[in-house]
């Protein structure tokens, strides 16, 4: 994917976070939960790993957008949380560019973590499970650019 385009490392202007923080947050939660349910329905998320998320609460904090999304997984469905949980089981925080780079598989989560661009607080094992679950998702392949033959030995 990154052979076609590359997401730069950027930081949104302060104003975005200032305004974003004043906006209602539930649409983010709803959008994220909806996307996760769609991924689960499409069979992209391994069932045995997803089952281990039962009853746990998650917060995703997009620092430079002043936005956060919170959700839980209960009864086989990702559900948005209308109020930010006081003590979520797991919270991820990063700038928008880091989240986009992660989603596009342009950067490795451990790399972002080492570089302090991604923070994970809470149940570390749960975080690892989610990271590995997302890594195991087979993304649809974009057409490959024709490559020159490689002479192997």
């Amino acid at each position, binding site marked *: 994917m990154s052979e076609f385009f590359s997401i730069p490392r950027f930081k949104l202007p302060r104003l975005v976070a200032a305004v974003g923080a004043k906006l209602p947050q539930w649409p983010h939660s709803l959008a994220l939960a909806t996307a996760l349910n769609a991924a689960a329905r499409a069979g992209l998320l391994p069932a045995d790993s997803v089952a281990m998320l039962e009853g746990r609460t998650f917060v995703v904090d997009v620092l430079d957008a002043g936005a956060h999304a919170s959700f839980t997984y209960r009864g086989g469905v990702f559900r948005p949380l209308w109020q930010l949980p006081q003590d979520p089981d797991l919270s991820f925080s990063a700038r928008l560019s880091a989240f986009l780079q992660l989603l596009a*598989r342009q950067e*490795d989560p451990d790399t972002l973590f*080492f570089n302090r661009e991604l923070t994970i607080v809470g149940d*570390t*094992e*749960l975080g690892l499970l989610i990271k590995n679950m997302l*890594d195991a998702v087979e993304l649809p392949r974009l057409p490959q650019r024709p490559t020159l033959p490689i*002479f192997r*030995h």
Partner: protein
Amino acid sequence: MPHRAVPQLICPAGSLPALKAAVDHGADAVYIGYRDDTNARNFAGLNFDQKAMVAGIRYAQSRQRKVLMAINTFAQPGRAAAWQRAVDGAADLGVDAVILADIGLLDYASRRHPTLRLHLSVQGSATSYEAVNFAHREFGVQRAVLPRVLTLAQVETVIRNTPVEIEVFGFGSLCVMNEGRCWLSSYATGESPNTVGACSPAKYVKWEKSPGAMSTRLNGILIDRFGDDEAAGYPTLCKGRFEVGGETYYALEEPASLNVLEVLPEIAAIGVAAIKVEGRQRSPTYVAQVTRSLRAALDALASDAQHFQVKAAWQAELARVSEGSQVTLGAYNRPWR
């Protein structure tokens, strides 16, 4: 094209997309593990179930790449059958080799599956040619992965005195490097790679955020505290900062990644059969990035060893994904013997 022999490139895969990334970017072989404690990367959600293994092996082998199965932990009391079943399963799946550390398991595999190719894992901790030759004589081991404690001259001595192919680490996170003999994780948590297949298991790890800092605790023990502008590392005791003699510093090992690009010509010249990339716990993105850089370097070396130069782009890509964002030659160029 005039070329010289260069080491094979052995890349890690903790998932099917990672395996495909390794193959697509030029790995000669990938190494994988089961989703249990028979391998030393037994992490939640990582590794291959049966279906993914079959698909992965087919993907690699149909492209003339090899698949190595790491069964590199030590059989635990009363549960030896689980490790034996793992070896049987690997043989049934048609992997190109199994990577073993446990002497008892090597014995089992060599008797039960005489045609199965055996590699001695780094966890087997063979640092001398006598140890490597023992594994060859007794179990027919055809390749040994050397621990990262040896200098290049010592690696060469091993190679000159054994018929066994020698594999060394080429890139990846460094630890205290006493592979197969390290009990630091057990000291803190009661669990270690040798016993449960994981160093510093995640359930014991807590990252605590406070204004301007992040603290790492392993089973309650404060391992490190990072300022907001400091690079972080894995939460292991060996990479913690401790107060020793009134000074607080990385008393055992700095968080860093090994990177052998600079000594690649020497590694090839002394006859190393393969270089291994650490990191089955990392994402497909990391596997693609590291495999791509090392493949380019090995191909450059193969086509024109005389004029081999490390390209800044390879170094930059490898430095970016490194633990603690720094790279080192590790023991390879240390003056001690």
